């Protein structure tokens, strides 16, 4: 068991090494990369299976027992998120084999992608605050590498903005960790949870504020989300889908782990502030999306908006709120990555991401039009798709707690989400192409892209039509948090 618990880090790291060694032989590198992703997926399934029967994989490294040693602990929440990470990694690598905006193939692309997976997997597995910081840094440096290897001027520019704002978050996190250690003498989550009630209310509020500020920058929440829409659209599509699915969610997970588990119950003022930050995140994200005409920018702003929904679930707290957080996160990762991938297929067929310059795709590829509607309407929350169940859980809890303002705002934001999803569909698929002489490309290699997007859409439909198992899992996960 102790070998398996390190798998979310060890498997991607081993793949990083092997793909780097194979970087001069592209075919071999691709095979190694796929095999690594599949082994990761298998390990993640085993981790979820053992977490689901209340035997969470946990180990403390170097025979230093907790709270001294660094501990990995994969409870239901962590294991589920590791599984979805592995899945996203496999899907992105599959999509990379198509010619839909996959970007020029750099020999270090695959090692860096697996590096991101190692960082995300480590962040979801660790039960140590400082170790969490280290995994955030692994993610950051690999993400920066993926931005910069393209070498285009806009990518370098985006990389700089991403670097500066994320570095600020990282430094805040480091200072907050120092303060937490100074106040409690612990970094291990379990030990911190025991030490937390002894803190004075003022100190506990200050520490939580510092930690949350750092995590919220990483999560891309209001008002510190500027790095996200400023940079994401310069990435090649499969990497973009991976980032969109995973990176901000690690920040959200860290928020959930902090206020929903380690420091639960958090002071009311912190949760109240988090709720309003979530509301503002929803609103400003969707307004940005409504303004733009570039599909990637629209979808990037929708990441921000949906982060607001997830944070709202965190802020509602309690078992229902935490269960909603996990359910929403899983649903959202699948749907959001899929939307970016389908946008890349639209780009391949029409040659532009700009909605004003494309059109007429429904006549050409009706199946793609229908495929786009599955994640798009799920993101909006149209029943019976998975987004409906996720939003229902959040709204039910908001109304049950008498948070009518937040619930009303969430519904208004959903309407605007519907507007921008319909905008993409009408402009890209329904309207005539603005250029009458436009011809679709003669030869495309989209089979892997179809496989990846259809797979994700099928997963969305399974969650939509049979939400009970995920719901039961999320509720069981919420019961283990905070105690």
């Amino acid at each position, binding site marked *: 068991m102790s070998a398996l618990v390190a798998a979310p880090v060890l498997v991607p790291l081993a793949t990083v090494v092997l793909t780097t060694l194979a970087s001069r032989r592209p075919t071999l590198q691709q095979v190694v990369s796929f095999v690594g992703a599949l082994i990761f997926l298998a390990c993640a399934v085993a981790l979820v299976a053992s977490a689901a029967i209340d035997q969470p994989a946990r180990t403390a490294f170097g025979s230093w027992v907790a709270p*001294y040693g660094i501990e990995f602990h994969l409870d239901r929440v962590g294991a589920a998120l590791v599984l979805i990470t592995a899945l996203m990694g496999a899907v992105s690598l599959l999509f990379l084999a198509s010619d839909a905006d996959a970007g020029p193939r750099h020999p270090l692309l695959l090692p860096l992608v697996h590096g991101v997976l190692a960082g995300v997997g480590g962040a979801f597995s660790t039960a140590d605050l*400082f170790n969490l*910081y*280290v995994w955030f*840094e692994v993610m*950051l*440096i690999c993400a*920066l590498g993926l931005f*910069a290897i393209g*070498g285009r*001027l*806009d*990518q*370098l*520019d*985006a*990389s*700089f*903005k991403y*670097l*500066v704002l994320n*570095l*600020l978050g*990282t*430094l805040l996190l*480091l*200072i907050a*960790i*120092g*303060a937490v*250690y*100074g106040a409690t*003498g612990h970094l291990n989550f379990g030990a911190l949870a025991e030490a937390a009630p002894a803190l004075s209310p003022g100190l506990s509020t200050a520490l939580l504020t510092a930690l949350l500020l750092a995590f919220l920058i990483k999560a891309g929440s209001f008002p510190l989300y500027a790095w996200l829409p*400023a*940079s994401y*659209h*310069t990435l090649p599509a499969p990497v973009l889908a991976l980032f969109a699915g995973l990176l901000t969610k690690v920040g959200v997970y860290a928020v959930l782990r902090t206020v929903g588990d380690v420091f639960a119950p958090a002071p009311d003022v912190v949760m109240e502030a988090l709720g309003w930050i979530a509301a503002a995140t929803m609103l400003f994200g969707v307004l940005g999306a409504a*303004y*733009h*005409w*570039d599909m990637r*920018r629209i979808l990037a702003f929708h990441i921000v908006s949906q982060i607001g929904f997830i944070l709202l679930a965190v802020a509602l707290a309690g078992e229902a709120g935490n269960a909603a957080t996990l359910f929403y996160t899983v649903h959202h990762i699948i749907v959001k990555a899929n939307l970016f991938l389908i946008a890349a297929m639209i780009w391949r067929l029409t040659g532009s991401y700009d909605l*004003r310059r494309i059109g007429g795709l429904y006549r050409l590829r009706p199946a793609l039009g229908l495929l786009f509607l599955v994640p798009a309407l799920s993101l909006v929350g149209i029943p019976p798709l998975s987004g409906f169940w996720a939003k229902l859980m959040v709204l039910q809890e908001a109304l049950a707690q008498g948070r009518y303002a937040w619930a009303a705002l969430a519904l208004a934001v959903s309407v605007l989400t519907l507007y921008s999803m319909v905008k993409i569909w009408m402009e890209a698929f329904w309207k005539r192409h603005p250029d009458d002489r436009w011809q679709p490309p003669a030869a495309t290699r989209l089979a892997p892209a179809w496989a990846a997007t259809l797979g994700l859409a099928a997963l969305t439909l399974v969650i939509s039509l049979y939400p009970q198992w995920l719901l039961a899992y999320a509720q069981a996960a919420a019961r283990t948090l905070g105690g």
Partner: protein
Amino acid sequence: MTAVLAATIFATVTAGVYLAMSRDVFRCVIGLALLGAAANLVLFAAGRLVSPLPAVVPVGEILLTDAANPLPQALVLTAIVIGFALVCYSLVLLLRLMRDARTDDALALRYAEPRPDDPVKPPASAADCDVAWPPEDRA
């Protein structure tokens, strides 16, 4: 001693924030590096300067006098290594960025932004963006 350290951290953070808010991208990165140094000092101070409590003491061992807590020192070492890597990366990135864009002004770095002369969504007024687009010598 604690007061001196606190004053040092204050001065470092002040200088770091001042530089990080500069429009000159090179100064901005140097400012972030200074902020990183301040964060390391905070982390170091978290273990107390002269602590009577080492982090781990085997059963039956006698407490050393004037022993500092080793854990924050290990944390600081890790943070220094990571911070060093990030600063190196950002300097290389900057060199490339400044060479390609031929500017070090953060306001002129708008290559990842929508064009200000976008016909459907014009900027509020032309004076709002004093950056010529496209920049004349876009290498």
